[in-house]
């Protein structure tokens, strides 16, 4: 009987291990064949460093977090709809706070509909990211207004979606946080949290490395890229900021960002179609390139995700390791683990 029990346990262990290996192999994209294509009119722009995240106002002012060359990162802006869009470093007035350790990652823009004031929310931290800095955007300058840190619900935050003057949803990408450990062992220790102005709390857990997040004010829905399971999650935001999952939309690629353009009911997401290459790029972006991919998802009148279009694939020669994409008025900007960004004119064809 003892032998039978041991045999059963070993069989289960082998099956579990086999399943994990199969899932891991699939996630790496070893089975995939990808083909390069892009919109007809695209051009490459030099960027001051590697692009981490974008956040745009509705009229196309894009805030960009750029990783520094060994130093801390910086915030830039780009007027996406300008005739000749360019990167502009933004001065920051830190007031009473210390800005030396500022290292921006995920971004979100929120505009107060009463007085038109615009605020930029920034995840910061050398171990990404356990600090949120909130700035008021005023006359081409970021005025620091609040720093939130040491909140027990913050764990290796990746991105955030502001919903009020000091309230926001955020993704905890990891828990330990050791990317390779959690990714390889299929550990679903990520979560979505909500900060209510005073304290944060986890509102959805057991997620496998959630990355980008965006909030629809029109539909009261939250969109989250579920990096580990290669899908896009749609949550309905209930009272008291509780969220309930209403849609799981497969993407079949490990996507990093969500950009929601409510005016055109489009969602753009950028990421890594071949993770086995992206892992090398993440470890050493100077010496390894990996393919980039941008997907566009149409949203229906209820805010649900409907159809998907692959807007761009680059095999990594021009644009390596895409991390973020933003689109307004048929103009698309994509950046990643490279000192280049791709700017494209995209014609939106819903009915192709």
């Amino acid at each position, binding site marked *: 009987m003892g032998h039978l029990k041991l045999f059963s346990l070993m069989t289960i262990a082998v099956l579990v291990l086999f399943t994990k290996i199969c899932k891991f192999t*699939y996630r790496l994209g070893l*089975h*995939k*064949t990808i*083909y*390069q*294509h892009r*919109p*007809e*009119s695209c051009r490459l722009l030099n960027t001051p460093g590697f692009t981490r995240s974008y956040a745009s106002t509705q009229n196309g002012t894009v805030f960009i977090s750029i990783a520094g060359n060994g130093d801390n990162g910086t915030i830039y802006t780009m007027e996406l709809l300008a005739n000749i869009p360019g990167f502009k470093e933004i001065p920051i007035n830190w007031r009473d706070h210390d800005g030396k350790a500022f290292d921006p990652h995920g971004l979100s823009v929120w505009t107060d509909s009463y007085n038109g004031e615009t605020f930029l929310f920034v995840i910061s931290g050398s171990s990404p990211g356990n600090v949120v800095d909130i700035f008021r955007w005023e006359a081409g300058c970021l005025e620091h207004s609040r720093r939130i840190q040491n909140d027990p619900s913050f764990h290796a935050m990746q991105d955030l979606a502001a919903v009020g003057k000091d309230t926001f949803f955020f993704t905890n990408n990891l828990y330990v946080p050791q990317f390779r450990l959690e990714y390889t062992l299929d550990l679903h220790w990520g979560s979505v949290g909500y900060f209510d102005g005073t304290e944060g709390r986890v509102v959805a857990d057991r997620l496998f490395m959630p990355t980008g997040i965006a909030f629809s004010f029109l539909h009261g829905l939250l969109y989250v890229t579920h990096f580990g399971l290669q899908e896009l999650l749609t949550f309905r935001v209930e009272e008291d900021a509780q969220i309930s999952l209403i849609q799981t939309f497969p993407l*079949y*690629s490990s996507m990093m960002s969500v950009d929601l353009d409510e005016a055109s009911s489009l969602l753009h997401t950028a990421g890594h179609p071949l993770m086995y290459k992206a892992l090398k790029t993440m470890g050493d972006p100077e010496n390894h390139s990996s393919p980039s991919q941008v*997907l566009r998802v149409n949203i229906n009148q209820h805010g649900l995700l409907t*159809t*998907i*279009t*692959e*807007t761009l*694939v680059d095999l990594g020669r021009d644009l390596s390791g895409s991390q973020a994409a933003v689109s307004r008025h048929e103009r698309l900007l994509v950046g990643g683990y490279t000192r280049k960004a791709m700017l494209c004119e995209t*014609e939106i*064809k819903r009915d*192709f």
Partner: protein
Amino acid sequence: MIPVLGIGRTFYHHAPGPCRLVEGIESGAEDIASLPNGLAFFSSGMDFPVGNFKPNSVVGRIYTFDFNHPNEAPKELKIEGLDRMNPHGLSLWQNEEGEVFLFVVNHYPDGEESVNKFLYDAETNSLHLKMRVSSKEHSHIETLNDLVVVGENRFYYTNFLSKQLPESIQKFGRIAWGSIGYFDGRKTSLVHENLLLPNGINISPDSKYLYVSHTGNTEILVFDRLSDGALVLKNNIQIGTMADNLDVDPVTGSVWTGAHPDMFGIVAYLEDPTRHKSASQVLKINMQDGDMVNMTEVFADDGSFISGTASAVHYNSKMLVGTIFTNLMYCEMN
């Protein structure tokens, strides 16, 4: 095997510009060839393998489509000298006098295979039969698929399958009994053998290189042409998908192909195209001296918009995409 089977592959839709299905074409446009003036010819209503469809459920026809007037409906060409068509691959030849000849692969119900040469008459909108190269009179003609004309009466052709073994055994047993044949104006000969489902065939603008879609191995073979018509394999370009017909842009030399990225999808579609969809793909492969420079996926669809793409022709930022049994798609490229 993974690229052949297409296991785990995702088919995202994307298009190079606005695309629409051409009205009136519902029995496919298996192969397309175009003249430098933008007049395209395509075969429609193919029954392949012969007997796949109920008798008289499809009628073989040849149409023209004018890229310069894309809103005009395709024109059906009157066939003179042949009672019935079951057209497959086709190829154009224009002589020094400006006469246009269309060579068409034709399958017959009794198993005969032939290449028919027609003179195109633009005034009467008709094709006049001028020559037949038939399996009844020539050896080395098995189950034909496509051809490319390289001289007044000279052409290369692909034997997609051998007649010596049942089709299903060759296809699913991966028995490489396909071949490339050459007709020199008098007789046929085999110039390359042991291929697994050789399909589309075409030639570089400088006539130096012959391109053949080696469907069974998801690659495009590039051959050097010798003066006597013999071929020497120069290159095999792995494309990771089953390319069907090949078209060569006369200006840039790029190879355009309609392809089948999903083997299970295309097998079901071939069985019953009214019930089963198959993912579609158009690739452009830029070439230089017989080597691939780069490859772009121009169009892709999971089969819900267009299913079973077999051919793609490009002309002045416009594209015509044909399918084996179902539709024809026209795109304007931004």
